């Protein structure tokens, strides 16, 4: 236990002093979150905007249109119609014969069209006005806010939670005699490699969790975004993300003899690719993939974490928690086992 603690302290100091770790785990996520916020903040707060309709003075449906809350009525002369449509002051113009003039197709123009159509359709239905109960409300409203853009932030959190990958690569590189000077020394001392390895995993996990904490504080108090409302399961996913990242890092570190820089580049590319698929660069990619290749979202580790985070925190749904934790745990066990296979009984004739 004492040896483990000592190893943890030394490796912790080693990792903190490494600029690579500080940049990728501490600075980069904060920079990325800031960019995301700058770019997407304006798109997350949707407000229902009024629809602007142009009519000529004396149009017979003026009083009907004025009753509809969402419509803004503008009095427009025939001469001004083209100009007002072109500069976007009005979405559509209704003439005295109830024909509609628009500049482009769109949701607002479609709503105007349906309103005019209703007036014409009532004329065609030919029922006395007292048959219509305009006060009747048949809809039970089940409001659910749509917020596709927030997926980007959850993907970022998921990506960052797997940044234990860097710690994993470093610790495995350090204990291999053909890759580092410390590895050479370690291999000629009576120190046990597995103790050093366990200490490395503990340190990698702890420091990355600390980095995740910094990111959450930054997002909550600087960017003022409330991402984590549910704590229990969210923490489990973030810890599992860290474990998965560290395990994958160990695997990358142990499975080949490339330089540590090359391994880190490999790690960045792999994690970035998984994050892109989970919607970090644009949530539409996630929606398209979910629609066409739904299995991808269930096996991509970053998607598993980000999907569960938004389900837990914004939808209050726990339906995929069990499946997600199981798959992430299996991945972690698999990569740790494979790393062990690569590392065990490794001897060197000469260095």
């Amino acid at each position, binding site marked *: 236990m004492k040896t483990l603690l000592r190893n943890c302290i030394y490796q912790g100091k080693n990792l903190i002093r490494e*600029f690579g770790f500080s*940049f990728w785990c501490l600075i*980069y996520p904060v*920079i*990325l979150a800031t*960019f*995301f916020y*700058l*770019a*997407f903040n304006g*798109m997350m707060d949707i407000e*229902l905007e009024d*629809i602007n309709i142009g009519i000529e003075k004396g149009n017979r449906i003026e009083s009907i249109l004025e009753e509809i809350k969402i419509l803004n009525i503008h009095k427009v002369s025939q001469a001004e119609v083209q100009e007002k449509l072109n500069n976007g002051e009005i979405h559509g113009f209704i003439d005295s014969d109830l*024909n*509609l*003039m628009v*500049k482009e*197709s*769109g*949701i*607002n*123009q*479609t*709503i105007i*069209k349906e309103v*005019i*159509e*209703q007036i014409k*359709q009532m004329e*065609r*239905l030919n*029922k006395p006005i007292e*048959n*219509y*109960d305009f006060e*009747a*409300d*048949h*809809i*039970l*409203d*089940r*409001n*659910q*806010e*749509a*917020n*596709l853009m927030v*997926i980007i932030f959850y993907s970022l959190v998921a990506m960052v939670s797997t940044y234990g990958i860097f710690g994993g690569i470093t610790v495995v590189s350090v204990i291999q005699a053909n890759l580092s000077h410390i590895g050479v020394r370690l291999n000629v001392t009576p120190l046990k490699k597995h103790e050093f390895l366990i200490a490395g995993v503990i340190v990698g996990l702890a420091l990355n969790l600390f980095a995740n904490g910094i990111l959450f504080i930054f997002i909550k108090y600087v960017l003022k975004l409330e991402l984590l409302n549910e704590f229990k399961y969210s923490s489990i996913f973030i810890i599992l993300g860290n474990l998965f990242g560290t395990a994958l890092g160990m695997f990358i570190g142990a499975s080949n003899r490339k330089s540590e*820089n090359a391994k880190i*580049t490999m790690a960045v590319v792999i994690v970035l690719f998984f994050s892109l698929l989970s919607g970090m660069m*644009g*949530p539409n*990619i996630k929606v*398209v993939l979910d*629609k066409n290749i739904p299995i991808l979202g269930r096996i991509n580790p970053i998607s598993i974490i980000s999907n569960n985070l*938004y*389900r837990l925190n914004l*939808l209050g*749904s726990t339906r995929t928690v069990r499946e997600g934790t199981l798959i992430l745990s299996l991945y972690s066990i698999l990569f740790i086992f494979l790393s062990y296979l690569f590392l065990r009984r490794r001897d060197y004739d000469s260095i």
Partner: protein
Amino acid sequence: MTVYKYFIKMALRNKWLILSNTLLFFFFAIINTSGHIQEEMSFIETKLNIGIIDNSNSPLSNSLKDYLESKNNIIDVSPEEEIIREQIFLQIVDAVVVIPEEFEEKVVSKEKVIEVYRDDRKAESIQIEHQIEKFLLFANATHEEGKFDLNAIKSALSEKVNVNMIRDGSRGIDKGTNEWFRYYFNFTAYVTIACYISVIGLVMADFNEYNIENRRKISSKRFLRFNKELYLGQLSLAGIITFIFILGSIIIKGKYIREINFNIYLVNTIVFSFSILCLTFLINNITRNKFVTNCLSVVLSLGTSFISGVMVPQQFLGDKVLTLAKFFPTYYFVRINDMQTSSLLGVKNDIFMQLLFGLAFLLVGLYLSKTAQEV
């Protein structure tokens, strides 16, 4: 040409970096291929993506379903509330309509009867509400002797209004095609910056390494000649990468090139490529550290892309963000692609700004290079 040859050789050692960036780029370009090409010759009604769960299966509910199906795209939805809410959240559906068992009775008694899952803040929620309320208003208006006159409702609902679209003189038919090219070329900005800074930066870091530089100083190779070959190597590499991206657009959407102003995309991409090459030159004169180069590559490519409108259209970005973006050539590159103007004269200012940025990067880089030589 020994230096040139080795520059290219060392750059090709980083082929995986170029390949991974390029493949990632084409992957997203192809994903975005589907569904964009749509001609707009006349007014097209906006159809919502809706799900309908009919637990009543009565004549009235079937008639309502038929009407909603004629006005919207129907998406298969699960009856589970959690899944419905997630589909609304992800904007896979605009609304989900749940019709209960005792539908007809509740309509007659004018109760709140239909559950509609939707986002109240969106115009789509108004449209679906209007369609449902109109149908049920008509249904109640025709309700006599315990029966709804569904044929009369159907006939009334077939009444349409004329919609005329005004023309503003622009070529309106290539909206979808232009949209694809706009997205494609905007995204090249991200990959260009990432590739140039990381690949050229890493090779230059090797050339600028202390021992190599000392060897070069005592060699017979003239400094000017050495630099000329290095810059030629950088230009060749940048040319190849730019050519791949331009060729990619021709391969994926070649048959639509005549519908758009491809020359503008072409000139804009080449000018931007030059500007970023100059930025890379500046960075190479600021740092020799490979790690810092890598960090700058990631931060600058992602950062400028996010604030300049590559990932999100400029119209959605705040004024402060756009003001910040104006200090990078990416902003002007994206602006030209977004403008969709028909002549090069219309974008001359933005082309000029990119060239100016390139020149500024080059001059500062040359100054730093000269300062470093004097030390």
